[in-house]
């Protein structure tokens, strides 16, 4: 992939190294080390022995976080983050709706105050006017 993506980058010469020299050297090194890892695979844990029992939890977290990231600019900090926390509590942790709603709104307002007001960090407004 690296070699394909660096087609137009000049390798240069040893006395005048180009922009493509380091990435190509590193890609070569990675191929070498990867081959050595594969060669020593017999001493590693078998792939079938890896515990994937948390994959559902991980996948759900990634999907919810990705949705919140996608909504961050259009909806703004307050809405996107409140929905993120609420969705994590309700969809992943199966917590009660009311508790989750109160916690997510309270937490987001606290973070808004901390970052937006106390630390004056610019937060995305999105749909809201403040």
């Amino acid at each position: 992939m690296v070699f394909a993506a660096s087609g137009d980058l000049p390798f240069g010469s040893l006395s005048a190294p180009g922009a493509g020299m380091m990435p190509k050297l590193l890609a070569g090194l990675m191929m070498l080390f990867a081959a050595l890892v594969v060669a020593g695979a017999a001493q590693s844990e078998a792939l079938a022995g890896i515990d994937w029992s948390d994959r559902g939890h991980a996948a759900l977290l990634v999907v919810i976080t990705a949705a919140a990231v996608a909504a961050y600019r259009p909806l703004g900090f307050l809405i996107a983050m409140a929905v993120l926390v609420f969705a994590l509590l309700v969809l992943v942790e199966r917590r009660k709706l009311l508790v989750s709603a109160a916690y997510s709104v309270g937490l987001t307002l606290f973070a808004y105050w901390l970052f937006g007001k106390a630390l004056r960090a610019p937060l995305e407004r999105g749909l809201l006017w403040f």
Partner: protein
Amino acid sequence: METLDSLWLGFSVALRPDVLWYAFIGCLVGTLVGMLPGIGPLAGISILLPLTFGLDATKAIVMLAGIYYGSQYGGSTTSILLRIPGEAASVMTCIDGNAMAKKGRAGAALCIAAVGSFVAGTFGVIMLTLVAPPIAAFALRFGPPEYTALLLMGLIFLAYMSTGSLVRILLMASFGLLLGTIGIDVMTGHFRYSFNIAELGDGIGIVPVAVGLFGLGEILSTPSRRVTGKVVRPRLRELWPSRAEWRSAGMPIARGSVLGFVIGIIPGSAHIISSFISYALEKRVSRTPEEFGKGAVAGVAGPESANNAASTGAFVPMLALGIPTGPVTAVLIAALLIHGVPPGPTLVNDHPNVFWGFVASMYVGNLMLLALNLPLVGLFVNILRIPYAFLYPLIIMFCVIGVYEVNNSIVDVWIMLIMGVLGYGLKKFGFDPAPLVLGLVIAPILEMSLRQSLIMSDGGWSIFVQRPIAAALLAVSAGLLVLSAIGYLSRRKDWRAKLAEAEAIKNP
């Protein structure tokens, strides 16, 4: 005398109320970060890095470093009370610290851990005060070949000192270096692998990568059902150890302090390794080795002192040479660079307020941590009672905000998410992500110094062996590779294999 004058200047900076306040915030947050499972010092520092943007460089580095060494203090609390290391360096403390807690000596174990950490941390800072300036003065002789050799030695040291396979570590480091080449090539102006995404023109930032790999990646692989919340709350009057316990702790604290500082200077996960070696040393010199594992005071005092001294030792190459010895110091270097202060040999002379203010703040920070960790331990324990299910959404939210605020870039947040998934995968397949972060940080310096060296020598590799310092550094690297090869071929179980077994306590 000159050092004392400089230290006086440092204290005049560190004792300013505003700097003291940020040192306190750093120590407090560090203690919490060290206690909470699922968030280590690296993720804590990375997430909170954007909060320092509005501060000057001294306050920023004082606060971030406070998080680092504060986490070493906090890590012992969960180890002793829950037998869950809040962060990796506290793995060894679990064994005898928790055994002491089961005997009703939780308070004494916490007190010994805190006092040991204080003594070791203070010893480390004294040594840092004495050692860093001369090393920085020596490093002024370094040119591009020396820096190339030094960075390569750092990477090989990291690989050698790690508990995992050398080849896997080098593979991860190469991947990090490769990621570090993304963006504009400063020597020729070529755009590399930016795929017409404007934000990638500046390269991949360390914050999204570190937060993704260590913050989000850890949360993805930690379902809340696996995090228990049952804790013992020690009473304040139980905190004071008995006279016999103090006697048993004295020498292990002294040995752990010296050992930890020396190991801390060496690249690698020094604070983790130092606690393991200290535990092994204490067991070997003990008159009652059979007590280890059943609540030996030395098994708490030695490793806790060693990991704190190592954390301070790691600042020597960072401040004096501008070289990170691990991912945490890599992020701290990034923080200094963001504030326009390049760490390295010129730091002492060009920014004495930052350097000496930082050093002096560590003396004060250690005192603060002692004051925080002893009387307030009961309060901190309450935080461990917050269900993890409510805690990690907060951490994810802070990850998103923290990464976004660095450059106001949503691309950075996507990178963090991708790195989170990558971190999860790497953990499953037994790859350590730390060398990746280190590679990413040193990539620009390594590439620049390598290319400058080759231009200087008109393309001759011999420049690296003709210059004595570079040749010596490369000889050390070669020696380490040979040692690793011998260990691999003879297949005997060395100290790194034993450390890997000990770390399995943390990740059963």
